[in-house]
């Protein structure tokens, strides 16, 4: 038997370079940590989606329906006819490469199929191969290829590595919105029942209970009550909000993740305190209990079905208009689709702030105002009693969430708020913020637990910019206006930039709010002792009134 030990010259000849192969010949490998789990059968059945079955991406046989090729061809054809943009995006790309290096997943993973141009080419090559004469005859020479099961697997792998953040589209000279190509590809995959669980199950929950987590009305209310207890403990103020109250002036809708997931709950507590502080006549709904819309990551029809509850609930409760919380894709759906999709909301009024009288003309059609627009207006009109020094232990930077930034153009309001509620605010480098912002890596349904390594790749460019402001300005808090960001960042920060935490903008507002009847604010909303946090950044402790009354010797030189 030959000695299996390689000889030194054989070892020296080991090449670290990957083999050169055309992208069409390179197949994805489904490794743990790098892909998303398949949707469970019951979740598809619950909302009447096609081809529910038990399957696993690591299986050789995906149990595709018998006529899967016909379904895909018909799916593409139908969408080419329905969406003019899709037809144009399939035809006009000249492969200039302007988008190629703009994707956070490409930058972080180094996988060329994450270049937006190549990711789009995964679908475009089938469009050419199946629909265009040149592609049908010349195949690869004309950039076309045949539809095989391997293609479906590749689509599943890569279209669920795109967060639909649209950074690439900012740089396309033709205005191709590559996110829309992902949206179409996912719709087609969905026709085959090839959905991910982290989208499919929330969709089913949302359709039946009103929110992604499947919280029933009493559970939703109970969770809010726990948060009210915490607010009372830390601020001394007992708040009694209303639920499903008919005749309230406003309805408030926010992502359900914030009602129980850490650190989103602190932003949720912030809303409760802010509304109490200004005496807002509003109500929560336990039915329209979700601002987010994972239907958006499924199909246009599903997006519409899930979103309908917002207007329906506003009508049932008889409110004047709707105020919405900090969320990402929720605002893209509202700004870009809701008006024509679920509207016209002619039973609602053009939003006017009951506190300042400001008319939100930008929301005249949707009748929905973003909490940051609302809060910035309150601050601008001096309606909030704020003590920004309460956030002095924080050195804050702001992450523009993709959808509010690129989907609704909201760039200034959160910054205006932050500059008024804290004294130390620092911007990340310009090529990483505002319309150029880097995605968190967890949008569009990618914030599942099983794909953490993949998410870490996507989050790398954002974290790299956070590291920069941490090194340069000692930043220790990353603020944002998106519930998915809030859920994604803790693990990202721990891995890439330890020492930095993340929060919602409204959490910082509430920590700076001087509430009527409050006790000395020795604790922040997280239940952390403010003096401990100050000590960490070498700030002198605050002498709380109680200590002085108790005869404790107060040290000279303290604040």
């Amino acid at each position, binding site marked *: 038997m030959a000695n299996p030990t390689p000889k030194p010259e054989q070892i020296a000849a080991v090449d*670290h370079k990957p083999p050169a192969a055309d992208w069409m010949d390179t197949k994805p490998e489904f490794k743990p940590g790098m892909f998303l789990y398949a949707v469970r059968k019951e979740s598809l059945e619950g909302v009447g989606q096609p081809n529910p079955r038990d399957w696993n991406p690591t299986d050789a046989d995906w149990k595709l329906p018998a006529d899967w090729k016909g379904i895909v061809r018909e799916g593409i054809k139908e969408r080419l006819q329905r969406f003019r943009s899709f037809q144009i995006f399939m035809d006009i790309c000249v492969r200039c490469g302007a988008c*190629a290096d703009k994707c956070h997943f490409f*930058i972080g*993973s180094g*996988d*060329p199929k994450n270049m937006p141009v190549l990711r789009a080419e995964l679908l475009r090559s089938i469009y050419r191969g199946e629909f265009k004469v040149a592609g049908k005859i010349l195949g690869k020479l004309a950039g076309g290829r045949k539809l095989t099961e391997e293609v479906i697997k590749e689509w599943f792998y890569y279209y669920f590595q795109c967060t639909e953040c649209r950074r690439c589209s900012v740089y396309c000279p033709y205005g191709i919105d590559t996110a829309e190509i992902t949206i179409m590809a996912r719709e087609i995959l969905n026709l085959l029942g090839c959905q991910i669980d982290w989208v499919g199950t929330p969709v089913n929950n949302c359709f039946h209970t009103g929110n992604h987590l499947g919280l029933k009305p009493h*559970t939703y209310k109970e969770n809010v009550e726990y948060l009210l207890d915490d607010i009372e403990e830390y601020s001394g103020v007992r708040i009694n909000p209303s639920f499903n109250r008919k005749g309230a002036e406003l309805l408030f809708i926010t992502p359900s993740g914030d009602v129980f997931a850490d650190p989103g709950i602190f932003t949720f507590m912030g809303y409760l305190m802010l509304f109490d502080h200004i005496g807002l006549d509003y109500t929560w709904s336990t039915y329209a209990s979700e601002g987010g819309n994972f239907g958006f990551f499924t199909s246009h029809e599903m997006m519409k079905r899930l979103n309908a509850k917002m207007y329906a609930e506003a009508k049932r409760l008889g409110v004047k208009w709707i105020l919405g919380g900090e969320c990402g894709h929720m605002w893209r759906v509202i700004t870009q689709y809701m008006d024509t999709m679920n509207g016209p909301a002619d039973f609602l009024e053009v939003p006017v702030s009951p506190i300042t009288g400001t008319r939100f003309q930008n929301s005249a059609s949707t009748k929905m105002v973003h909490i940051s627009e609302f809060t910035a207006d309150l601050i601008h009109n001096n309606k909030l009693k704020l003590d920004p020094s309460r956030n002095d232990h924080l050195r804050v930077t702001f992450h523009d969430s993709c959808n509010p930034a690129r989907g609704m153009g909201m760039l200034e309001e959160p910054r205006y708020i932050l500059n008024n509620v804290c004294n130390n605010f620092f911007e990340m480098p310009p090529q990483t913020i505002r319309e150029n912002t880097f995605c968190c890596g967890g949008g569009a349904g990618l914030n599942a637990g099983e794909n953490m390594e993949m998410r870490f*790749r996507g989050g790398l460019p954002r974290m790299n910019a956070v590291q920069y402001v941490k090194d340069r300005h000692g930043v220790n808090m990353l603020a944002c206006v998106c519930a998915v960001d809030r859920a994604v960042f803790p693990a990202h920060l*721990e891995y890439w930039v330890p020492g930095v935490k993340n929060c919602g903008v409204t959490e910082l507002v509430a920590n700076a709010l001087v509430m009527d009847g409050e006790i000395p604010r020795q604790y922040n909303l997280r239940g952390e002792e403010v003096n401990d946090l100050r000590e960490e950044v070498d700030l002198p402790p605050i002498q709380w009134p109680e200590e002085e009354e108790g005869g404790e010797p107060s040290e000279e030189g303290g604040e």
Partner: protein
Amino acid sequence: MTFQELLLKHKSSILGDWVKAIVETYPAETARFLRQSKDQFANPVGAAIKTETEHIFDQLVSGGAERQELDKFLDRIIRIRAVQDFTPALALGFIYDLKRAVRRRLEKDLKQQGLEEELLKFEETVDNLMLQGFAIYVSCREQIYDLKAMEMRNLYAKVLERSGIFTVVPDQETLEPLSETDEQNKA
């Protein structure tokens, strides 16, 4: 000329070879991007490779290499490769590429000046660097598993605790022994 002086003289070509070898562990299209894009925010991976290889080289050449400093520099490259599409061997193989680069650039001079012994010593240092890198790689992977657990806990622990489904168990010493009635109920 001493071995150290030789290393310094050929620093840019050695580093050039080393960076090239690392960049070429990625597919060709990506390697091109990693080499060309100079913006540290647009190309954080390329920037980390370029900056940290130089830091590592300078530390090794200085003679009094600080282990902690080396850890810091290695971490910035390995932390990235630990989540990318590499096998553990490929993720760390780049460290040995430094040996190849040095050998390639200095082989002739070393032979002429009889400094082969020095080369062996240097290669031993690189071997140790690999062990350091191995520890960093493993700690990165362990951290990922910890973070997966942390994320689950943060998501669900609080709500389960509040709804009474999940309880934080007190320390064993503070637990009361079961009473007779409890035992009977249990039976």
